[in-house]
Structure formats: C-alpha cells, structure tokens
C-alpha cells in the first residue's frame, strides 16, 4: 500500500485515503479533434516500466488532485506536485535524474 505526500495539505497519506486517476498531463481533445487524436486522448496510454507521471486525488483528506512521479517497478516516489500544471516541475525532474540517470522523457 503506497504512501504519497499530498502537496496541498502536506499529509503523508496512505493509499486508502487516495483515489487513483491514471496518467497525468493529458491534453483534452474537444469537438474539433480528429478521430485519431480523440482516440489517443481517451484510450491510448503509455505503460512505462519505470518513471510514470500519474494523477491522484486526496479523496478522503483535503479532496485535492495532485500528481506523483513514481517508478512502476520499485514504487519509488520521486516527488508529488499540484495538479494545476501542464508539465512536471523542474525539481521533480531533477529528483528523477538523480535516481535514474538513464531516464529520458
């Protein structure tokens, strides 16, 4: 059972307090989108072995969504950050590179 620190309220939350939300940093595709773009937005996901950016909600806590960078192999958590961003913050990327020098986005 994972623990993630909620960047909104600061609590180190057990997984039982959290609701998962899948891949982070998706861009919404609206009515103008092509079939291919809409399919990719709705259904096509990377399934990386290693670093993964993902959405979580502190559902049984402050209720806020946030993002986590986590290793899907070891469950190592490189950092969590608020959901109100289109890309991971530099300090999280640095933390990943420190632990996974070979990693590329």
């Amino acid at each position, binding site marked *: *059972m*994972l*623990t993630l620190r909620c960047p909104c309220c600061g609590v180190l939350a*057990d*997984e039982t307090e959290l609701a998962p*939300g899948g891949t982070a940093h998706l861009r*919404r*595709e*609206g*009515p103008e*989108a092509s*079939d291919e773009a*809409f399919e990719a937005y*709705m259904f096509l996901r990377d399934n990386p072995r290693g670093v993964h950016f993902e*959405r979580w*909600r502190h*559902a049984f806590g402050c*209720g*806020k*969504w946030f993002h986590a960078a986590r*290793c899907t192999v*070891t*469950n*190592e*958590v490189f950092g969590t950050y608020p*959901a*109100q961003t289109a890309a991971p913050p530099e300090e999280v990327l640095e933390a990943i590179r420190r*632990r996974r020098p070979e990693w590329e986005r």
Partner: protein
Amino acid sequence: MSTRLGTGGSAIDRSRPVHFTFDGRRLAGLTGDTVASALLANGERVVGRSFKYHRPRGIVASGPEEPNALLGIGTGDRFEPNARATTTPLREGMALRSQNRWPSLAFDVGVVNAALSRFLPVGFYYKTFMWPRRFWESVYEPLIRQAAGLGRAPDAETRDPDRYEHFHLHVDVLVAGGGIAGLQSALAAGRAGAQVLLMEQSPHWGGRAQVDGVRIEGDPAAEWVARAVAELEAMPNVRLRLNATVVGAYDHGWMLAVEMPEPGPRERLWKIRARRTVMATGALERPLAFAGNDRPGVMLASAVRDNLMRYAVSPGDRTVLVTANDDGYRTAIALVEAGLSVPLVVDARPECNGPLPRRAREMGIRVAPGRAIAGVRWQRRITGVDVCLQAGEGSALEHVPCDAVAMAGGWSPAVHLWSHCGGRLRWDEATAAFRPDPQFPPTGADGQAAILPAGSADGHSRAVEVLASAHRAGVAGAAAAAHEGDAGQVVTAEEGAEAPALAVWRMPQSADHRLRAQTFLDFQNDVKLTDVELAAQEGYRSVEHAKRYTTLGMATDQGKLSNINGLAALSHTTGQAISAVGTTTFRPPYTPLTLATIAGQARGDLFQPVRRTPLHARHEALGAAWEPVGQWRRPYVYPKAGETVEDAVRREVLAVRSEVGILDATTLGKIIVKGPDAAQFLDMIYTGRPSTIAEGRCRYGLICNENGFLIDDGVVARLGPETWLCHTTTGGAERIHAHMEEWLQTEWWDWRVHVLNVTEQFGQIAVAGPLARNLLERLGGMDLSREALPFMHWTEGRLMDVPVRVFRISFSGELSFEIAAPAGRAGEIWDRLAQDATPYGTETMHVLRAEKGYIMIGDETDGTVIPQDLGLNWAIAKKKDDYIGKRGQMRLHMAGERWRLVGLLTPDGAVLPEGSLAVAQGTNANGQRRTQGRVTSAYWSPTLGRGIALGLVDRGPERMGETLSFLQPDGSEYRAEIVSPVFHDPEGERLNA
C-alpha cells in the same frame, strides 16, 4: 510411544493441569503446553489424514511450518478449522477434532485413494476430471470436495461471538522475530533512540538459542535473553509483543501482523507503517527426502529438541536420528541426556568427526557414517528403520528397531518477508540455502531497502555472526529514521564448533523408483519425489509451472517445508543447477490469518456507516420497509397491518394519482455551483445550457462523461446571478461533486468557480398529487398558486414559519412540489403534511415515474447509453461548441442502428421480467442467440391496471407496433408490443395543473 517425562520442561507448569478432548476422548495437558505438545504427551501421534491419499499423518514440526497437525478447534459458534496445533496454546476445555478423516482417524475410507494412487497422478485434477463437462457440478466437484481438502468451513448459521480488532501504528523500526537476533536488533535501534516495535510469534523470547546451548556474554543464552528483555521493557520508545507474527510485507513499508493477545480480543490485526523492518525471522529446518518420511513419528530434529526441552515431551522411547550435519547431533545428545534411547545416528556424510559427533560417540551413541534410510517400517506405528548406503540405490544393510525418527536436513533462512514485496534471493552454495540478495532488496518509497535481514534469516548460523548482523541491522534501521544515539556494543557469544554440513536432497542418492514413490516432499499437499519428476518429464520445467501442476508448496505451506527439497528434485530431473531453477515466489501471509481477523470490527452494524435522513425516525415509526440505496436507507414502501408489499404500493400509487402523497427526497444530491465563471463551467458539465436558466426557474439537465455516455441527471435551479443549485440522483451526489471538482482542479483550474455538496444540509419532501397545492396552502405562509409558482419555477419563503425553498418540479407526472427545509426542521413540515397526505416510498416513486416514461439512471442507463438513445435530444444544446461528451457522441457508432428507449406492453397485461432479452434471428460469433433489445424497468401499474415496461430496443422508436419475443432462462416466452414509453397523461396536463 510419545510421552511426558517426569522432569524438565522450561515452558510448562506441572502444578496446573489443563483438560481437553481430542475426537471426543478426554485428555489432560499442562499449562504452557501447545496443542501439539499436549497431544504428544498423551501419546497421540496420528493427528490427521493427508490431503490426497488420506495417509495417517503426525506432528512434524514445532512452529508455524507444521504441515500436518491442522485441527478443528471448538464447537458451534466458536468452531475454527485448520488451527495449527504447534502454535495454538492449549486451553482448558478445548475440544479438538482431527480433519480429513471419515468415519474415524484410525479407519479412513479415503485411504482407498492410496491404493488407487497410480490413478491419481500429479495433475490429476486437470487430467481426470475434464470430461464430460456437465459432470463438473454434479459429480466431480462434490466428490473432490468430500474426499480432499483441508478442514470444513464453519456452519453458515453460526455467528462468531468473539471480538477482533485492528491496530494502526507508525514506527521507525519494526523487528520481526524475538530470538537473540531480534532482541539484539531491538536493543541497538532502541538505544539509538528509534521508535521500535518488536514482535515474536511464540509465547517465549529468545528463540532457539536457549534450546541449542548457546552462551552469550559468558552466560547461558536464557540469562542474556532475560536481561535484554528487561532492558527493552524499560525503554519508553520500545513496544514488545509476544504471540504476534509479522505475516506480510507490502509496498512502502506497510507491514501486517497478527497478535493473539492475552488478555484482550481473540485476535488483533496490526497494520504497521514501518520506516524499516528488521527481518529476524530465523530459519526453518528441512525434512530429509527418504521413503516413509511422512510416517507419524518422523519429526524434524529441532522439533524433537523443542518438545523435549520446553515441554518435557519425548517423541518415542527409541529414536533414530538421521542427519547430514552436526546440528542434528544436539537432538541425539539431548535425548540421551533425558534418559531416552538413541539406537543409531544415520549420518549421510562419509566423515563425521566434529565436536558434536565426537561427544555423541563418547556418550555411547552409535554413529553410522555414509548411511541413509531405505525405509520406515510401519504397523500402525513405527517399528524400525532400514539402513542403507547413502551412495547406493537402497539395499538394506541392517534393520534398526525404533519407534521414532528425528530428521535433520539443514536449515533454510525464513526469507518470506523479504520476498513478499519484491526482494530477490540468491542461492548460496556454501550454506545450500536461498539467502536475501543485498543487491535486490524490497524497497520503500525512498528507493532504499525497506527490509534489513538479520541473524539466521540472513543465512548466518553461528551465534556470534547472528548477533553482529542483528546489531548492524538495528543500527541501520534507526539511522534511516535519523536516530543516531549510542547503540552499545555487539555482545560476544560461544557455542560448539560445527563441521561442514552436506546438502542431501534425496536418500539414498540413487534411490530406485519404488523408494522415490514413497518419498514425500510436501506433506500437506501430498507431493512425492516421483510427482515432481513426472511433472518435469511432462514439460513442467519452470519452477512456477511445476509448483502449480504438482501443488508443491501451495496452501498454507507456502514453501516453508517443501520448497528447497522440491527445487532440488526439479533441478536433479532437469539437469539444471538449483541456482538456475530458482525459487517460487513466497506470497503473504506467512501464516494464515482468519477471515474474522481481517473483518475486525467491520461486521454487523459496524460493517459500513448507514446514512439516515432527518426523517428516518418518522419512517421507522410508520413501519417502513427499507431499501439500501448506497449507504442511505430509504423507505421502500410503508405497508400497513395486513397489507402485502404489492397492496401497499398499489395504495400509495393510487393515493398520489387521486389525492396527495409525500416522499422523503432528502437523499437526492444538492450541489451549489457559484462564481463568476460558473455559467461557462455548467455549460461544459451539462449537455444543455444552464447558463440560460433565468433566476427563479428550473431546468432538467443531463451530465455525460467524455465518452458521451449518460452518467447522471437532475433538475438545475438558478439561485442568483452567479449561483446555481444542481440536483443529482441519490447515488450521484458524491460522484458528480467529485466529477465537477476533477474538471475544475485539473483542466479549468483558472476558472473562478466553487462547488459545494450541500446534500445533507437540507431535508427535502416531495408533495405530489392533485391535492398537493391545497394541502400546502393550508400550511400557510406562501402563495403557491399556479400564477405565483408555475411549473419548473422555484421560490423562497416560510411555510409554518420554517424557512424553505419550494421547487415546482415533478418526477411523478402529477402536480408536484419539492420542499427543501434546513435539515433540522424538515420534520416539522413532514409531521403536518403526514396528517393529510399518504407517505410513499421508493418503489411507488419508481412505478409513478415508469408510468410517465421517465428514465432512471442505472435502470435505463448502464454506462453505454447516450442521451440520444433515450429520446432526450431536446436536453442537448446542439449548437453549443463543446461540452463534456460532445466529441464522444460525434463518433460513427453513436448514430444509426442503436438500441433506443420504448415502452413494452404484453397482450395479457403480465409484467415482463426485468432484464429479459428480446431475441432476434440467428446466432452470433459465439454461437449464442442474437438479441435485439432488453427490458430495463417493469412494474405492475395500478393506474393502468396492467403490467408496463420500459426497454431499449434496436431502432425501437421506428418499430412502433411490432411484437418482440422475450425468451426466459426456463425456456418460456413472453411477447410484448413496442409502444410509446409514456403510459400516463402523455399531454402532461396533470403536472401543469
């Protein structure tokens, strides 16, 4: 014959006898006994029958690895199957029953399985019971369940009266195991200042060191153990628990432990978040693989020693020791010192001249080097062993009479916790064991090793190394939590020197097929040496495949006893090294935990919280039949004395249609959406345009997901320039609130909108029926005339001096008002209304809405239905640029030939079974009959005096008047005509009244 000796026994109190029964016979043990030691003290060596062949089986081990002695304990409500005799303390009045035997332990019908064993080869489940398929339910499964398996589940009617609880704890260092390694780790971590929890599975601290004659700091181990425990108990930052087993290691240092507290609840489940766990879980002795090694009276040498030293129980009068290491000699020496006979030590090693064998010889024990056991003679008890050369095929050289056999096959580190959460193991040729691989530990959230192995769990066998590794682990665990205080010195230890052990995987080395077919690798699952060989020959060469095919190491064993010998057999047959064969994955839990422990307090009334509306007590007083709706309890119907449910629904429906009824609508979700950007936000959330609702007015709205599928519906009211109140379904309140929050927080976080779930702030009452207005006007305080409050309008005021909002909306098709009052005051209004109106429940509400053709989320929708399927195109703003679901609904398969909402009428007025499928011609790719529609809602309509149904039918609205056939599982058929879904008042005159 096993028996209690006249003196000795460190764990027992001879002045306090304990009475119990075993299969109905009255027996007595002593305070401090385990169930196993008490049975052995009474000469009970056969304690169960094996899983597959129903062979008589006895106690093998003295700890949680015991494979055979699983008993039914207690009676009635307190019956518990599969209790492990070796770890269950004996209690006064205990009723024990052996398992897997019928009609009795001594004579078992299932033993015929053994005669048929050549027809029960490995994989027999897969091979024998395949065909014909229809025999599975009626013949094979009942047969297998009767003949095989572990203990029976408690009777379904019993209710466990005991209390079980859960503990939650965060610690810096959890120490699993209270032997000398665990104590030393806890001392080091505790002295350094860490918060420590130390758990020991048995009722005793100190583990094996005391039984094995180790000396620490110059004193017998027991004295050091007492000093260590005293020091730990004095530390405020250290918790100690006996009778507590750490059973599972999970992600991010989440550890599970089970405690049998004394006194306290029957069992306690510990959910521990540990920064680091020290795995000081010791090692498990391996059986040796020789013919007849499963006979009752063949025990692990360490278990013989434990029973002798702790409980003063001898396994027999004449015990042959069979070993491949020096450690086994400790058992022979202890037996002779206790005045018992050891006629022979069979040692597989050609040379055995270490200090322990020398001492054994000095005591007069005969030692036979380079020898093996060729067979165990058995006539309802062991009568002797045949001895052969280890280097041969098994020709007996001599027969040695005896009544017990102790086997010492070497020690396997108990690495289960390491493996539970991804730690890898490496095969260590020197110790012939799998040891934790420090290169690949199970890691925590910080990416560092979460588990630190210590002592013999890490593969150390010498006390001095055990204590040093434990000290290091304790220091490292504390340091990980930034506790760097003085951990003290590593203590010194002495013990007898040991000559190298020999890894012996089969006895004798070239045992012929007849011997191998009597050699058991897994006692619990009845897996023999020949089974693993056959599996390998049949191609099950991967260890994970062989495990599943043979069932080796499955069930509660989890590889504790069977693992290494099984791997060695696979290695031998396939010609791979053991390191290449690898090991199966150990899964949690290390020892089984009961379902009651997992449930804890979450049962009965505490299983989940129940949400009650402010009117709950009033419904109860009216005798409501309840319907669970999520966590809510809603009145289903209010039957009066002598009324059936059907009668009551009929009465309530007719009351609403002809007079007036009242419904508790509190559970409907109420979400306030407010802010400068609320209008644009709601236009994205809903398919329509809530932004255009005028203040004081209401509108029906639909919410879809990005796929375009309908997920909720409800009436939206505009409260002010920047404020809307969104009603949701009962089940949708939390879900839709979360849906809105998700879009606001993760997509449109710059939009200035607040959403607030105020569902529980209001008590809401629907007042429906032709007399609704008359009734409300009699309450006084508000003008609710047709002119003042037209349909789909709302207003604020005071009714009976209670502040309320009144919405003129209808889910029944009648003139209807919904009154929202502060939750604490809704009761006043209900009480007044109830004097003149008929309370009605959810079933009546369903009938009323179905008569009107109103859809219900979850009945007419199933997650694949778009609003267009339900004829709700009018609620979609087609010219709107965007809303959630719009792009999804533009996909090709969202138009054209889809199943759409219709009404369905049977010619004779019968009620169609809900969920019935309308069949079409032909079959699909799976050979199943094609379908063209299904019944989504069906009721008896009191208003129409006949059955009515709503359904989704392929191109339904284009096929009015067609008759469909609905086939039932029993082969019968219903026919129904496709009609309009609106059965009652299609012009809507009544709700506009």
